[in-house]
Each structure stands twice: as C-alpha cells, then as structure tokens.
C-alpha cells in the first residue's frame, strides 16, 4: 500500500484531533479515504488517441499511436507541460465509425483535453458529429477526404486533402504519358476513396488521360480480389490504381500479378505502410505511390525520432507515424503555457499558432484547421520503398 508515502493533506481547520468531535470525525474519514485511495501527483493533462488498432487498417493506426506515445514520452521526460505530465488514453476504433464515435464520448467523459486521430476518413466522418457536439478538439494525422475541407469544425487535419493528392498523382502520370488507368476503390472507406478517385479522374481528364475502369470492391465480399483484378484488366489499362489500405492493396496486387505480370501498379498514399511490403511479396515489386514524408530524410530531428521509434517498436515509423507525431507536436505547442485550454479556446490557439516545426516540415493550420504536406513519390523495389 502507498499509505506510508502519502503526505496526508491536513485541513487548515482544527489543529488537534480532539478539539471538536465533528471535525475530528471528518478528519478521520478523510484520512481513511486518503489512505485507501492513495494520493495523486499533479493533475495530468489527458490526451486521447483514437485509431484503428485492430482490423484492416491496424498498421497505420498502430504506427500513429506509437508515434504519439513517443511524443508524449519526450514531453513527460522533459517535465510535462507547465509541470503537468501528459497521460495518453488510447482507444481502438476497429475501423468502425460507430466504435470511434463511442470512443470520442468515452474519452470526453474521461476528461481529455484533445484527441489525436483517427487515421481514416471514414472513421473521421463517423466521429465528426460527436466531436462537434462535445467540442473536443481532434487532430487527425492522415484523414484527407475533401469532405472535411474548409469546414469550421473541431476536426483539424495535418495531411493534405484527397484533392491535393489526386492532382499530384494525375500530373505525375500524365507527365509519364499514361492515358489509360483503371482504378480499384475500397468500399469500406468510400468517403476517402471515392473522393480520391473523383478528384483524380477530373484532374487526369484535364491532362488528357482517362480512367477506363473502376471497381468498388468489398474486402469482405465472397467474390474475392481476383474478380476485381480481372475486371480492371479487362479494360486493358496501362496502369492499375489501387485506392485502398495496405492489406487490400497487397491482396489486389497479388491477384493482378497472378493474371498480368506487366501492368504498372499504382497505390494511393494510404497504402504506404511497412505492412504493404510484408504482404505484397514480389507482387508489389515496381508499385509506385506517394508518401507524405521523406523516408530518406537525414535531418537530426527526424533521425532522432526514427531511432527511438525503431528502438522501442522494432519497426519503421512510416508516414502515419510522422504525421501523428506532428499532430502531437502542434497540440503540445498550443497547450504550452496554458495547459488548461480546451474546446473553442484550444482550437483558436491552434489556429493562431505560427508555423510549428514538424519532423520534416512546418505545420500551419488555415482558418478551417487544414494543413498542407509535401509529397514524395516512392517505388517498391525488392521489398523496400525507394525514392524515385
């Protein structure tokens, strides 16, 4: 028990235990309660994390959580914010919007100052009503659907939008003289994937290209990935664009490669996790995609983060880790000197921040709480991401 270590906080009234009977009883009960409950250190600042830690997007969720955990550890070992340690409360959204919405309420009840997460747009869309109702400032590292853009809400985003991204992809492949692209889009995250495809299609069309086939696939459906692969290949594309998470991207690539060894495989930035490499095997060799971070960065700040991430979690941080760390950094900066900020005040403080140095690039929210990221094209070669 901790009784011995606890300085019992003495009430200023009543010096002696037996001065008056009633204060004595109160004091006694207080002492008992204090002894039983133990006594706490300075009130911690509670920060919530919501992300997919099981389910098909568990890879980027886990990486984000780990990165936030490192950010929290760093702040706490430096004495916390204004002397108050940060306590991280983690919730698994299981990739389900409703579960995530429940998690927001649970975290709000637990008294969190803000939430970092989620990673996917569909989950973010599910959380949004709860976030705005409870006015819990939520910073998503990776949610990028255009549905969240230019909304004055309590959801702030670190990453670019699907529009930005899709246009980068369109320009890139138009520059490579590709004109026929077939696309597979994930039904589980339609908010993201349909938005992404729509932006890409119009941008690509503007540049003279064409999306010749699309297939909305359902990972849980009986027909399997081979059916999608066949349909897309039937349109005789120069490249197949996979707008899906890493698992589905790997599975689709496997099925495509079984049917066609030549067609160029392109993946949306969502899939750009280490897990893609494990599951894709030889099937993803040559697959191209954009990452929002420079995995070959040698800046000291990034290397320090990467090394401690590797040491602690025995894997690579990945884009969702970098973004989540930046989200935590900007949140802690806003709380610095005013650790009790919450809700609208915290949001205003975040929007008023000057550009904050992230791991690889500065973060600055616009008045709707949206930020911009740089894009880095990478290709998978021999089971590794290689910058082009």
């Amino acid at each position, binding site marked *: *028990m901790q009784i011995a270590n606890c300085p019992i906080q003495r009430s200023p009234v009543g010096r002696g235990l037996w001065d008056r009977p009633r204060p004595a009883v109160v004091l006694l009960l207080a002492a008992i309660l204090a*002894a039983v409950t*133990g006594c706490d250190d300075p009130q911690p600042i509670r920060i919530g994390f919501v992300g997919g830690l099981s389910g098909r997007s568990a890879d980027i969720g886990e990486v984000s959580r780990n990165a936030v955990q490192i950010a929290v550890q760093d702040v706490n070992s430096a004495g916390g914010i204004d002397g108050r340690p940060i*306590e991280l409360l983690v919730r698994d959204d299981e990739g389900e919007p409703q579960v995530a919405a429940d998690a927001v309420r649970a975290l709000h009840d637990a008294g969190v100052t803000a939430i970092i997460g989620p990673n996917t747009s569909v989950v973010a869309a599910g959380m949004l009503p709860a976030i705005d109702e409870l006015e819990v400032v939520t910073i998503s590292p990776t949610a990028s659907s255009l549905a969240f853009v230019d909304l004055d809400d309590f959801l702030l985003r670190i990453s670019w939008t699907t529009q930005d991204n899709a246009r980068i992809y369109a320009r890139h492949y138009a520059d490579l003289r590709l004109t026929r692209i077939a696309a597979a889009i994930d039904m589980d995250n339609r908010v993201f994937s349909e938005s992404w495809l729509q932006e890409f299609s119009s941008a690509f069309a503007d540049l003279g290209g064409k999306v010749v086939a699309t297939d909305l696939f359902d990972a849980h459906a009986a*027909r399997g990935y081979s059916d999608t692969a066949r349909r897309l290949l039937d349109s005789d594309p120069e490249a197949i664009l996979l707008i899906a998470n890493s698992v589905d991207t790997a599975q689709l690539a496997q099925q495509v490669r079984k049917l066609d060894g030549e067609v160029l495989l392109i993946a949306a930035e969502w899939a750009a996790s280490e897990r893609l490499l*494990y599951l894709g*095997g*030889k*099937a993803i060799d040559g697959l191209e995609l954009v990452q929002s971070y420079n995995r070959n960065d040698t800046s000291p700040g990034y290397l320090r983060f990467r090394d401690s991430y590797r040491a602690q*979690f025995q894997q690579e941080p990945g884009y969702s880790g970098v973004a989540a760390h930046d989200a935590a950094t900007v949140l802690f900066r806003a709380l610095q000197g005013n650790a009790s900020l919450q809700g609208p005040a915290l949001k205003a403080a975040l929007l008023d921040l000057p550009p904050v140095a992230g791991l690889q690039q500065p973060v600055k929210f616009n008045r709707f709480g949206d930020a911009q990221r740089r894009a880095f094209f990478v290709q998978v070669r021999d089971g590794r991401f290689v910058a082009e």
Partner: protein
Amino acid sequence: MHRPYPSLRLRTSVTILLVAVILVTLAIVGAGILAVMVPRVEAENKAVVHRAAGEIASRVTGFLANLEARVVLAGALSPGRSPAALADLLDLARGPSLSAIYLVDAEGRLVAASIAGSSAVRTAELSGIDLSAYPLFQAAMRRQIPLWSDKNISAVTGSVTLGLAAPIPDGRGVVIAELPLEALLAITRIVGGTGSLDYWIVDSKGEVVVDTGAGAAERMNVARAPIVAAGFEKRPLPETLRHAGTTYLASAAYAPALGWLFVGRIPTGLANPELRKIVTIVLAVFGGSVLVGILLAPLWAQSVSRPIRAVAESASRIASGAPPQAWPHSSIKELNRLSADLEIMANATARREEELRNLNEELESRVGRRTAELLRSNRELSQALATVEQAKDELIHSEKLAALGRMVAGIAHELNTPLGNGRLAITSLSDRLARFESGLSEGLRRTELDAFVETVRSSSRIAGQNLARAAALVGSFKQVAADRAASRRRKFQLKEVVDEVLLTISPSMKHLPVALQVDVPDYLWLDSYPGELGQVLTNLIENCITHAFKGREQGSIAIEAEPAEPNHIVIRLRDDGTGMPPDIARRAFDPFFTTALGQGGTGLGLFITHNAVTNVLAGSIALTSRPGEGSLFELRLPRIAPLPEPTEAAIAG
C-alpha cells in the same frame, strides 16, 4: 473574555450526544475495520497476483502448445497430398479456435488455405500469392522451429491475429496458423478465472495482445511500463504497476516458448473492487446508522427528557410559589428518586413556611403590645419628669427664699447689737438728763454738774460709735445684696469678697465652736462675678458648718488661696470635720441629695454651688473627703472669667 455557552434544551443535547456517540463509535469501528481489512486484503491480493502471472502463463502456454502440436502435425502430414485432401487436412487442423491456417511452400508461394468464414472463391484465389516477404514465413524457414508471432496482421484476412508458423519437415515450406486475439482473450478469461484480477499478455514488442480488463479497447504498447521492461529483461519486478491513472499490484511471468510476458494485476486502493466493497459497506453502515440515529435519537431523547422536564416544571412551579402538582414518575430509577426527594423537600419547605408565618404573626402582635406599653410608660415618664422639673424649680426658688431669710435674719441680728447699744446709751443719757433737771431746781452742785457732763460725753460717744457701726453694716449688706442680685461683673480683690462673706456669716457662727482661719493674699485680683463667688463661698462655709461638725466639740475651717497657672487662682476650703464616705462624696453635687433631710436641708446647696462655679465663673470644683479626715473643696477659677453667651448677657442686661 468568556463567551457564555449557548444553553441547549435537554432534548437537543441528548440528541446531539446520541448522534455524536453513534458517529464516533462508528468512525472508530469503521476505521478499525479498515485498518485491519485494508492491509489484509492488500496482502491477500499481493499473494494472489504473485501466483497469478505464473499460472496464467503456464496455462495459456499449455493451451497454445496443444494448438501448436496440431499445426505441426498438419504440416508433417501435408507432403504428398492432393489439393483436395490438403484442404480437408487444413480444415481439420484449423478446428474451432483458429481463424486461418495455410500452407506456404519453400519459395513463399501459398499452396492451400483454410479460412474461417471465407468464401470458396476467396480461399481458392489465395493459392499462388507470394508471401516470401512475410516476416513469420521468413523466420520459420530460417529457424526451422515452430514460432509464435507477435501481434500480427494476417496475410490472408488482414485481421490482427496471432500467428503460428510451423516448418514442414525437410524444408518443404511452412504451415501458418492464425489465432484471433478474441480467441486468446476468451481462453485467458476462462483460465484466468473471475474476480478483480486482470491480465495482460504482452508480445515481444510491448503490444498488449490481450487485456482481460476494462481496457480491452485500449490497445496499448506497454513496453516502457517498468514491470514489462523488467519482465522482458529478467530483472526483479516492481510490485506495483501504474497505468491509466490507476495503481495496481502486479506480477509478471515470461513465457520463453512464446516470447511473451504475462502480467497479472489487481487494482490497489479504492480501485480494487474488494476494498471498494469494504469501504462502501463501512460507509453504508456508517451512513445508515447515522440516518437511524438521526431518526431515532430525537425520539429517545424525547422519552428521556420528558420526565426530567416534568420534574423541572414541577420544581419551577414550586419555585414560583404555585401549589405543587402530582410528581411525575418515569422508568428511570434515579429520576424517581429525585422526584420523590424533591416532593419531600417541597413538603418540608411548605411546612416550615407555614410555621414561620405563624411565628411571624405572633411576633408582630407581641411587638405591637410591647410598643403600646412602652408608649404608655414613656408618656408617664415624661409626665413624671415634668413634675420633677417643676418640683426642682420650686425647690430652688424656696432655697433661694430660705437663703434670703437666713440673710435677713443675720442682717437683723447684726444690726440689732449696735442699734441696741446706741438706744441703751441714749436711754441712760435721758435718765441722767431728767435727774439733772430735777437737781437743778434743788440746787446744783458742781460735782453733780461734772458727773452729768461726763455721762453725756460717754453716752454720746457710745451712741455715736454704735450708730457708725450700724451704718457700716448696712453699707456692706447693701454691697453684697446688690452684687448677688445683679451678677455684676467687675474687677475685684479676692480678699475683699472673702472678708465680706465672713462678715455676713459671722453672726451665725458666733455660738459655734468653729474657728475660721483665712489666708488670702492681697494681690489676688479677678475680673469675674463677685456676687456669684461670694454666694459660692457662703454656701460652702454653711455646708461645712451644717454637716462637718455634728457631734463635735470644736472644729476649724481654713480658707486659703493662691495663684495657679495659667492665669488661674485656686481657692481651697478645708475643714477637720467628720468627712464623708465615698458614696456620699460622689453624690455631694447632685441636686436634692442631702444627709439632713427633714432638718431643713434642701439638697440644693452644693448643686447651686456647682452650677455657679462651672456655668458663671467658668471654673471647676473638686471634693476630696474621707470619713474622719475632714473634707477639702478646691475651686479652680480663671482670673478673667469668659464673657457670657449673648443670650445670657441679654437676659442679664
């Protein structure tokens, strides 16, 4: 300064007392229970936790070993089978607990799979996909032993699972089986039992694979928790674990076969349900008792205070003088005794009061009677006093008349002698003259004429001498009388007054055998009242003559005077008479005191003397006497008498 304590009603006081007793008792009992139970529960928990981690580790490991054996067996049985037979084998090996099992050849190509809840199309399309980069496959191929993965994303379903890779003998590939986290959680819960004990199963990266507690939705990485780090590094374990704001008693057991750490934990303090239950029960008993106390105490206090209040009211009634009522009785022995004693006391008081009242009335009537008697005797005394005063005045008046009579008799006697002598001379002269005339006719002879002339000469000389003496006497009387009557103040020679007194008194002393010796110097002068002084001396001498020499052949009276300081003279009048016994001497100056009552004494002589000396002459008089040794009167007089009071002067004037 002392503030007076607010006085409470008995009922309130008893209520507070009862509630306070309940509170204090329960607080002490509750604190005692907590003081005993809390450490005991903590100690029990510590023991339970200490055992728990090892037990759960061995049980879960045992369960997984069974699975592993099945998967290894499936791998061993797989070579040389047709695809259909292989599918059947894998379905059999998957059983109810595994979510997927698939066979990968040495090149990393998936050969066959059995996946729970998956469609045939899906299962079929998996064949031929490349898993050569899959870490679990790589590890199993490299080490050629069955390996359990950490938390792992399934290569075939995308779910987060635990993977088991069992190499097929002779390097022909790997069988990979996947166990859903939910299944492991269920197993852990089953073998871990119920209660407040919870478990983490932590993989080698620190990921919480299983959390049987409420934090199942938190998929934490706890690599940095001290107990986890210590468990993996085989260091001594800390006894407690702090996680998400709660402190736990914890222990950990490392399972080398899995590379996982099993952490058992029980919340400490109020977070522990058992302790919370105890504290809740204590608080509930406390609260319930307080409630019951608050509800019952006033009733009890009422029943206790009612008889006391009744006794107090009866006492108040008696104190305010109202007649006593029936004395209350209650179930409390002491109160009954008090009531009875008060009744006895009240009755005794009433009785005594009655007696006192009677006594008082009697006393009052007695005092009234006495007062009336006293008033009457006072009145009678006042009358008697007035009578006595009147008698005194009359006596003084008669004494004065008597003194005047005596003086007149003295004067008459004194004058009688010279006047008689003169008459006798004149008578004898006229006889001689008649014989001379007759002889003249017969012829006158010379001898006869010479004899006649001689007779005329001697007779006229005698007559003249006696007439002169009478005239001197008259003059002197006149002087005395005038002084006595007027109390006139003047300057005079003491000796002169003494001589006059002796002259006045000498006729009455002529027949007495008393010798008077006077030794008064000429130079003693006074400015005083000679009449009063003469009276005083006369009275003293007469008193002497009357009383001092009774039955004596002879006696002497000596009068002497001498000056005395300051500015006084002393006159002493001494006799060698019979003297006085002390009781007579003491009362000699009292009015109406006389030893010669019925013999002409008035008892006022010395009283008047005393008054004159003290009041008019402003001096003092003292008497010294003993029987047989004579008496001495000593007057002490101022040479200059003080002026009389104005009223007296007016009266005198």
